[in-house]
C-alpha cells in the first residue's frame, strides 16, 4: 500500500479543540504548582508578603492588566473577523494583539529593570538583608511573572505565525481552528495574569 495522504488531509475540528483544551489544563497545572507554593508561603509569612507587595508599583501592574485585557478583545475580534471572511480586519486585529503583547513586555522590562536597579533580585545581598517573607515574595514574584512573561513571548511568536498563515490564506473562513486555538492560548495567558495581578500588586 502506498503512502497516501489520507491522514494528513484529515481535519477534525472538535479533536483539535479538545487537544488544545487538554494542553491548557496542563499549563494551568504548571502554574497551579506555583500558586500552591504562593499560598503556602503567604500563609506562613504574612508580614513579609505584605511588605513586599507594598513595594510593587500598582500603576505599572494596572497598566499591564488593561493592556492584556484589551489584547484579549482584539484577539477575539480577529477570530470573529476570519469567521466572517474579513481577512483585512483579522490581520489588523492580530497585529494589534501582538503590539499589545509587546507593550506588556516593555512595561514589564522597565518594572523589572527598576527593581533590579535597586538591588532587588534573587540572591542579591540587598534582598537577603530582608526577612524571609520578603525574600520569598520576591523569589516568587520573579519566577511567576517571569514564567508568565515567557508565555507572553511564546504567544507573540505563535500569533506572528498565525498572522503569516492568515496573510498567506492558509487560515480562512472555512478552516480557522489554528487561529481559534491560538486565541484560547492567548486568553489563557491573560487569565493567568488576572490572578497574578491581585496576588502580587493588590493584596497589601
Amino acid at each position, binding site marked *: *500500500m*502506498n*503512502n*497516501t495522504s*489520507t*491522514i*494528513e488531509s*484529515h481535519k*477534525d475540528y*472538535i*479533536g483539535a479543540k*479538545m*487537544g488544545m483544551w*487538554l*494542553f491548557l*489544563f*496542563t*499549563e*494551568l*497545572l*504548571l*502554574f*497551579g*504548582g*506555583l500558586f*500552591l*507554593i504562593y499560598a*503556602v*508561603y503567604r500563609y*506562613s*509569612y504574612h508580614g*513579609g508578603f505584605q511588605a513586599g507587595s507594598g513595594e510593587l508599583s500598582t500603576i505599572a501592574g494596572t497598566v499591564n492588566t488593561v493592556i492584556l485585557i484589551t489584547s484579549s478583545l482584539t484577539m477575539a475580534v480577529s477570530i470573529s473577523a476570519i469567521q466572517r471572511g474579513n481577512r483585512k480586519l483579522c490581520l489588523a486585529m492580530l497585529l494589534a494583539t501582538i503590539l499589545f503583547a509587546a507593550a506588556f513586555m516593555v512595561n514589564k522590562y522597565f518594572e523589572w529593570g527598576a527593581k533590579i536597579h535597586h538591588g532587588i*533580585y*534573587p*540572591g542579591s545581598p540587598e534582598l*537577603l538583608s530582608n*526577612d*524571609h*517573607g520578603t*525574600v*520569598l515574595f520576591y*523569589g*516568587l514574584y*520573579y*519566577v511567576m511573572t517571569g*514564567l508568565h512573561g515567557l508565555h507572553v513571548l511564546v504567544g507573540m511568536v505563535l500569533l506572528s505565525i498565525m498572522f503569516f498563515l492568515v496573510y498567506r490564506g492558509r487560515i480562512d473562513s472555512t478552516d480557522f481552528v489554528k487561529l481559534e486555538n491560538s486565541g484560547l492560548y492567548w486568553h489563557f495567558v491573560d487569565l493567568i495574569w488576572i490572578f497574578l495581578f491581585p496576588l502580587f500588586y493588590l493584596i497589601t
Partner: protein
Amino acid sequence: MKSGFYEAKGKHRGILSWILSTDHKRIGLLYLFTMLTFTTVGISLGSLLRLELIAPGETIMAAGTYNAVFTLHGVIMIFLFVIPGLPAVFGNFCMPLQIGAREVAFPRINLFSWWLFVAGGIIAVMSLFTGGGPIDTGWTFYAPYSIKTGTNVTLAVFGVFLIGFSSILTGLNFITTIHRLRAPGMNWFRLPLFSWSIYSTAWIQVLATPIIGITLLLIMVERYFGIGVFDPDKGGDPILFQHLFWIYSHPAVYVMVLPAMGVVSDIIPVFARRTIFGYKMIAFSSLAIALLGSLVWGHHMYTSGMSDTAKVIFSLLTFLVAIPSAIKVFNWISTLYKGSITVGTPLLYVLSFIFLFAIGGLTGLVNSALATDIHIHDTQFVVAHFHYTMFGGTAFGFVGALHFWFPKMFGKIYSEKIAKTAWAFIFVGFNTTFFPLFMLGMNGMPRRYYDYLPQFQTGNMIATIGSWILVSGVVLMVVNLYRATQKGEEAGSNPWGGASLEWHVPSPPPHDNFDEIPVVETKPYEFKY
C-alpha cells in the same frame, strides 16, 4: 519481514523514513528501540549495584560512585523505561489498531514527543560526563541537597523535564484519539481493556506531569538564581518540595502499572478462550485507581514531618487503592476459571505479573500503615516492595506485551521453547534477587548504602547471585526475539486467536492499518472457537 508498514513509501528514505515518520506504528517501534538502549544501561547499572553489595565493605566501587550509580539506575529506569514503557511503545503501536483508527489524533505531535523523549534521555545521560559529574541525589532529587550539591543536577533535571513534556504530549494525544477516532460501533464498552487502561493512564499523564515540570523548573531556577523557595536558609521549605515531587511521582506509579494491568486484561481472555469476567468493573477500576492514586502522595512522607491528621487521611486513602486493584485481580482469576487455558509465553508473564504484583501490593499495605512504615522506612524492604510492583508488575507486563504483540509488530513468531526458558530464568532470578531484600529490610538493613553490617551478608549474596540469573534470562529473551526477527516463521495475522481489531489486520499491519475502517458489532473478547 519487509511487508506491511515497513515498506510504505514515504517522503523520506532510510533512517529518515523512521525518525521523521508520523506513522504511529513506526513511532511505537522507535520508542521500543530507544527504550531498549536506555534500559540496557539501566540494567547494567543495577547489576553493578548488586555486585557491589555482594560483600560488606568496598567491593567494586566507592561510596560516592555508588550514590551516583543508584541515582542513575533510578533515573533511567523510572523516567526512561517504566513510566513511558507501555504507553509510548504499545499505546502507540496497538491502541489505534485496537480502536479501529488509521492514526492517532495528532501524528506530528506524536513524532515531536518522541524527539523530546530522545533529547531528554540524551541530556540525562550526558549529565554523567559533563559539569560537576554524575548526580548523587537519588532519583527523587530531594531538596535542599539537590540545590546544594556540586554535581550536575541542573542538566539531569532538565532532561527529565523534557521527558515529562513528551509524556504530556503523548497523554493528550491518546485522550483525543480515543475520544475522536474510534471506529463506528466501537462504543466505550467495546474498547479492549488495554485501550481503556491507556485512556486512564493518559489522564494521569496530562494532569500530574505538569506538577513535576514546575517542580523541576524550580530546582533549576533555585540552583541558578537562589530564589529560596526550597532553601531553608532563606525561609523556604524542603518538605514542600517533597509534596510537589510526590504529587506527581505517586500518580506516576499508576502511569507505570495501569497499562500493565491493561495488558493482563487483554492477554488472559485470549489464552483462556473465555470472555473477560467483569469487563465494566475492570474498566472503571482503572479510572478509580487513577483518581485515588492522585490523592495518596503523602504516604511517601510519613517520617518527614506532617500533621497526624494528614497522615491518617493519607494512610486511609492508600488502603482504598487496594480495593480497585484487588477487583482487577479477582476478575482475572475468575476469567481463568473454567477456561480452556493454553499456556503460551505471554500468559506465563501475565500469571507472574499477578503473583508478583500480589506480593508487591500486599507489602504495599505494610508501607501504607503508619506504624509499620516507621519501622521499614528507608530500608531494603521498600526497595523490595518497589521492585515487586515495578519490575514484577510493570516490567513483566511489558515483556508479556512484547511477547503477545511481537508477531503483530514484526510479522514473525519466536521460539516458544526458548521464550519459556528465558521466562523461567527471569522469574526465578527476579525472586532470588528481590525476595531476600524483604527480610533484610525487616531486619533493619537501610537502602542506599554501599556497605552493610556483616549479619546481612547471606541475604545480599543470594540477591546478587539472583541478579546474575535474572540478567542471563533477559539476555536470552532478547536474543530469542532478535533471532525471530531474522529467522522466525511467518506469524500470520492472528497467531493467538485474538478477537480485538488489531488481530484482524495483516502482520505487520499495512501503513493505513485498515483498508476500510471496520464497523464494530461485538465486544472485544468474543471468541469464535
